[in-house]
């Protein structure tokens, strides 16, 4: 997978594990599949005013504002730790930018460094040119992926946003433009109102919703992406346990990422990893690859209108 060995199909999701260091004290990182770093942008970003996080029904909302030390800060302060402390765990660097140039500069600036496997491109952010998000604009996305493909031979994974009519279309675009894989999905835009104070609870007003609440949406997005392209998929969104993770696998994911669940239990990723191994053993499945996307049709299933 991505030309590398993953000790497990379970990774920690971007933004929920920093740059690895803090979790290393809590869980054996080299026993899970690895991690995706917090977003790295060209310049350091200060992030949003508080409150930045709050609980929502079955999930949480966050608006960190992509706070990060920037490309140089990442290389100087964060990458050395990853390089020196991880032996088997694989690392993807989550990359964010406000323009294709930004993204390209981060990827080019990192590409000669050691200590990570590839990139996860976070396209859930506004494109200063044009105003739309990269991840919701077919043309901008295709151009971005093609451009980044020219900057690196490392695994280039595009993290899809679910805010589109059909994730499948965007999956195909990424494949055609030269991506090596997909991550599905990022958060949903949401808002929490503090009724007593009559103001948004979150400092930047709106934020991204994650956690179990979005589990069925993430599984669906993974399945759609699997219908339209051949790229390996990392399934993300609401995974709490092995059963949730296996929903993603059966729908088409070959790796999964654990985000919000780690806040509830720092051992969540390890438990998912062990639970998947148990499931494979109990069901006589030799390799997880044998389960990827093998969803059977239900008897009597025909073309149907999903909603209502």
């Amino acid at each position, binding site marked *: 997978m991505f030309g590398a060995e993953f000790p497990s199909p379970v990774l920690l999701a971007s933004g929920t594990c920093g740059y690895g260091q803090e979790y290393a004290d809590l869980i054996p990182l080299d026993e899970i599949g690895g991690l995706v770093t917090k977003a790295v942008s060209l310049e350091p970003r200060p992030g949003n005013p508080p409150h*930045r996080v709050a609980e929502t029904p079955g999930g949480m909302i*966050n608006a960190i504002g992509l706070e990060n030390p920037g490309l140089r800060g990442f290389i100087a302060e964060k990458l050395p730790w990853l390089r020196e402390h991880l032996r088997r765990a694989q690392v993807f660097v989550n990359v964010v930018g406000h323009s294709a140039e930004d993204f390209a500069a981060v990827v080019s600036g990192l590409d000669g460094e050691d200590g990570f496997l590839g990139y996860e491109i976070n396209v859930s952010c506004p494109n200063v040119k044009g105003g739309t998000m990269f991840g919701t604009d077919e043309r901008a996305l295709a151009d971005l992926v093609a451009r980044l493909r020219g900057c690196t031979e490392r695994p280039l994974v595009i993290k899809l946003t679910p805010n589109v009519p059909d994730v499948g279309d965007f999956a195909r675009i990424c494949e055609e433009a030269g991506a090596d894989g997909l991550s599905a999905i990022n958060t949903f835009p949401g808002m929490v109102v503090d009724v007593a104070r009559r103001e948004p609870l979150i400092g930047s007003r709106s934020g991204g919703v994650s956690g179990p609440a979005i589990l069925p949406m993430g599984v669906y997005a993974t399945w759609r992406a699997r219908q339209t392209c051949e790229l390996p998929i990392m399934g993300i969104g609401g995974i709490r346990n092995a059963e949730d993770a296996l929903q993603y696998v059966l729908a088409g994911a070959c790796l999964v990422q654990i985000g919000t669940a780690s806040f509830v239990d720092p051992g969540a990723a390890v438990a998912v990893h062990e639970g998947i191994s148990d499931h494979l053993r109990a069901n006589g499945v030799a390799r997880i690859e044998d389960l990827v996307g093998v969803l059977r049709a239900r008897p009597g299933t025909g073309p149907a209108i999903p909603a209502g």
Partner: protein
Amino acid sequence: MLSAGAGGGVAVERAVPVSRRATLLSTRLVARDTWWQEFDCPDIAAAARPGQFVMLGVGLGAPGAWLLPRPFSVGWTGSGGEVGILLRAYGQGTRALAKLEAGQTALLLGPLGRPFDTEGAEVECIAGGVGLAPFIFLAAREAAAGRRVRLIYGERDAGAVFDPGLIARLTEHDPELFTEDGSAGRKGLVTAGLDPASNALLLGCGPTPLLRALEAFAREHGRGLQVSVEEHMGCGIGTCQGCVVRGADGRWVKSCIEGSVFPAEELDWGAI
């Protein structure tokens, strides 16, 4: 396992946090909507220092239940490995946690954050409401070392006051009590107990207006002040950047690792 912590400019040594499923040994309604809970958690009990906190949650298994952990000051540690929490039910999460019954388990992540740095100093603790919790821990530790602190504790009214007998038993200290309506202790705000003549280091924990008043007092009288701030938290360990407050230099600082205890001069009081 002691480290200098990942926060910037952190002086006091602190232990690396652990995540433990711990049994609730006892829980007791000690004031209106307020519980004293003791967990069996030797690792955290052994490592925690006054001013540090834990993230307390139910984990992922509880069917139908979803709860992000909530931060609570370590309110006391027992020699048998107990960790005491003073929990006031407020919103969804604290109401759920307040319902935990003895024998049930919860997930504790800790000890977290920067402790109070009181090395050798004479200390006055000013607590508003459940802001008392870290000072119970502090006073108990000081008492065990044969030292005393001044403990000033304010609540809205008598019904909210944490059982003074239990405080005395845990800390060997008698707090100086204030209530806003005078229904217990002296009438007035806790800040009325401040002594302009003293030179002791001030430690504050409680609602923001109290912290602001302390800051103004400390500035006016040139007194040292450390406060514990409260901000929403995601991870509690410095990874999510969810818990920032504005630092004096204008940067956002993570209150879970650079705090929750800050020397007053590290914060931007215009933004607190």
